[in-house]
């Protein structure tokens, strides 16, 4: 290796240094001019905008039938959302200031299955598809069996929402977890993520698909159901908008369900229409949640199946008349 290996001679580097200083000054000058021009442009733009608000200038618009018209910019209004667009946007916003909560009193459930049929009628479900199902439970060999209605738990920390790759399932400000079937791509990640098995998939053409064709899709009702997408309990978000109790809660003949707003600390029984304090109800009856150890923070509470004054029976003959 010899001197040739050095990339630059001392003269060259001196020359380069000079040119760098010159360039720097030139660039600085250019930048200064640029900033001044930009500021001037911004300021004049601001003045222009401010003037516009006062005077209202004329805009040229294209009408639906293809004519160009001139309209004062102050008179231009955005169209009100209607139809499906409105349903989607209000379905995302929810009902402000509310935190819906469901309480299920297991000591009263007699497996009448009215909640199931009311729900299936409302949400266009086949008899084998459940948003709510009544399970027959037995905790240990020595303990008494009981009936347990199981809904979507509308978790405050929903694993299903975490895994959705397309923002189809989402949590609303009022606590409800909903599904936008128009966005759903049917990947079923959410079904796998849900520890409560609350979700169902439309493997085959939904019930009465022909009669629901062309209807506006209501994200708060999941109707019309779509083939190849997910569905689940929605806490009857469409009914809550009307100030009514959910379908299942209203249909129960045995007073199992309480539904209400946690912010108001009140829940209303769907059968007796009696309103009670949520905190007191849970405290006095030993309310609990399903699998709280998973950290999902469910919005559904259960009251234990104590003091049942009727025998456990199979589905369908839970009525004393038939015995």
């Amino acid at each position, binding site marked *: 290796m010899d001197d040739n290996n050095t990339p630059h001679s001392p003269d060259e580097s001196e020359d380069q240094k000079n040119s760098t200083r010159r360039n720097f000054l030139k660039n600085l000058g250019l930048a200064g001019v640029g900033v001044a021009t930009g500021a001037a442009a911004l300021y004049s733009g601001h003045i222009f905008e401010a003037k516009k608000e006062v005077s209202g200038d004329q805009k040229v618009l294209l009408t639906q039938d293809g004519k160009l018209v001139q309209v004062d910019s102050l008179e231009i209004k955005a169209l009100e959302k209607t139809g499906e667009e409105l349903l989607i946007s209000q379905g995302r916003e929810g009902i402000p200031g509310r935190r819906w909560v469901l309480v299920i009193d297991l000591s009263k459930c007699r497996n009448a299955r009215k909640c199931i049929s009311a729900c299936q009628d409302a949400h266009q479900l086949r008899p084998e598809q459940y948003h709510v199902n009544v399970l027959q439970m037995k905790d240990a060999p020595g303990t008494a069996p009981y009936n347990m209605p199981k809904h979507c738990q509308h978790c405050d920390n929903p694993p299903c929402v975490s895994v959705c790759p397309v923002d189809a399932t989402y949590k609303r400000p009022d606590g409800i977890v909903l599904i936008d079937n128009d966005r759903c791509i049917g990947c079923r990640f959410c079904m796998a993520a849900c520890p409560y098995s609350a979700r169902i998939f439309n493997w085959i053409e939904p019930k009465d698909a022909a009669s629901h064709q062309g209807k506006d899709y209501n994200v708060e009702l999941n109707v019309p159901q779509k083939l190849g997408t997910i569905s689940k309990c929605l806490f009857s978000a469409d009914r809550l908008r009307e100030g009514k109790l959910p379908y299942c809660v209203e249909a129960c003949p045995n007073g199992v369900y309480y*539904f209400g707003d946690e*912010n108001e600390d009140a829940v209303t029984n769907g059968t007796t229409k009696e309103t009670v304090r949520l905190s007191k109800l849970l405290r006095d009856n030993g309310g609990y949640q399903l699998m709280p150890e998973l950290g999902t923070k469910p919005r559904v509470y259960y009251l234990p199946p104590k003091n049942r004054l009727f025998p456990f029976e199979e589905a369908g003959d839970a009525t004393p008349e038939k015995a």
Partner: protein
Amino acid sequence: MRFINLFIILYVCSIGMTVSAQTWVVPDDQKTVVAPFLFTPEMQKQGEQIYLKNCQSCHGLMGKDNWAKLTPPPGDLSKELAQKQPDGELFYRITVGKAPMPEFRNILSEDERWWVIAYMRSYNPKYIQPNPATKASFAGRIVTLDMKYDDLGKKVVVTANEELKDGQSVHAAGVEVALFVKRFFGKLQVGELKTTNDKGLAIFEFPADLPGNKEGYVEVSAMVNDPKNIMKTTGAIATLAIGKPTDMPSLTEGRAWWATRGKAPVWIILTYTLSVIIVWGFIFYIVYSILKIRKVKKINL
């Protein structure tokens, strides 16, 4: 032997059921109560809505015999067993209830209860409505409630006034009063029933932890408890700033693992951005190094 036992049990049960069905006796003075107005088709329509919302889950659809299988059986209200009862008897049963039938005293107004009866009667072609009751012929007490909040004692004070026959107004003693707070799906009773004292006052302690709106306002209403329906009463309603001010944030406000885009936790955004920068930086560094090698090669040549 087992079968005989079973038969005995069933027999006893059936006797028990018929007895319990018969024990719901309506006081004689209630049977003669009549509606304060003539039933119209509009009222029947209103009554149908109320029926579908509040009654149909147990009694089923009218004339379809699809009532819920309960003990005692609720029965179809278009059938003779219900229709043979006079209006007053039906009104009393709806008002008072008897487990498992809920009492509708605080759920439906008096008019609403009559509308349901109007709807029921529309299934009975033989029904002829008795002449409506008029206020003048009303023999019972006429009580009006008034409500105030006592700031010092943190108590709701309800005053009951009674209108006498000669038009004079006096404090009504011995009137049972219930206090309610409006909630989204219904009215929440506050405390127990109170009976007014000699000065016509019923004093309710208002729970300090009951949530109100942002400013603490709650809609409070006072009603007379009149199970035998012997009074003509007017309740009181007021919006008072006596609840606990409640302004809970929406459940999607905070950053969360499951939230989308901008609302993800800061550490996820940082880790993700940093890893993207590092990976791309590394790639650029390699490309840059390769270019540098070529440059060195050129100079050497």
